[in-house]
């Protein structure tokens, strides 16, 4: 696996994920398993999928 931290898209996606986690900390309790969870999952899926760079690519 190459160094994914040098990919600009990954850096931005990582920053976005951190921002989303910080913002969703103040969401209401009833949304913990709803919108909060979905928003967090969608946001961390972006850098996670960029990281999944195979050896040959």
């Amino acid at each position, binding site marked *: 696996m190459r160094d994914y931290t040098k990919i*600009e*898209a990954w850096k931005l996606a990582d920053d976005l994920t951190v921002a989303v986690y910080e913002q969703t900390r103040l969401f209401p309790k009833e949304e913990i398993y709803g919108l909060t969870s979905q928003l967090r999952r969608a946001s961390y899926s972006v850098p996670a999928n960029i990281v999944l760079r*195979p050896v040959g690519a």
Partner: protein
Amino acid sequence: MPFKQLRDAFMSGKQWILTSALPFIMQGLFNPQRLTAHGSYSRCRNLTQGNKPDILNGASKGREGSAKNGSKQCSRVWATRRREGSSRESKKDYLHFLYIARGSLSETQYFVHLSRRLGYLSDSDADNLIGQTRQTFACLHGLILAVEKEAGKFGTPVVPLSVVSSLIFLCLILL
């Protein structure tokens, strides 16, 4: 051992075992680097089994259902896929994951919009997040285009340069 699996499959007469075990057997026979001796496979296996008291065990209790479990699951998937023969090792596979990332980014954008509509996010916070998603989208789009070009999805030349140069040479000779 591959021969033992093959023999057992023949002896038991279960064809489905033979067909399912055959790829592993062939890989074990013809692959000079045996899977069990493969460094990345053994590391993935160690991570999955938790042989090392790794950082995941130090994660807080509240994270067990999300980050901790997700990391363990990912490590298990990686160990399995290394064993399957690393089917991801191509640019087209990577493109597939980049498209998923793009879809997730659009999803994030909509959830931010929804959070604002529901009053969970202030306008400034939502605008900030939307701006970040747009920036990320632009960058990710560039990455996708670059990988698509590398993968030869759209960037295949119609006529090779050598053919063009030889045609020009022929024209010059004829003239």
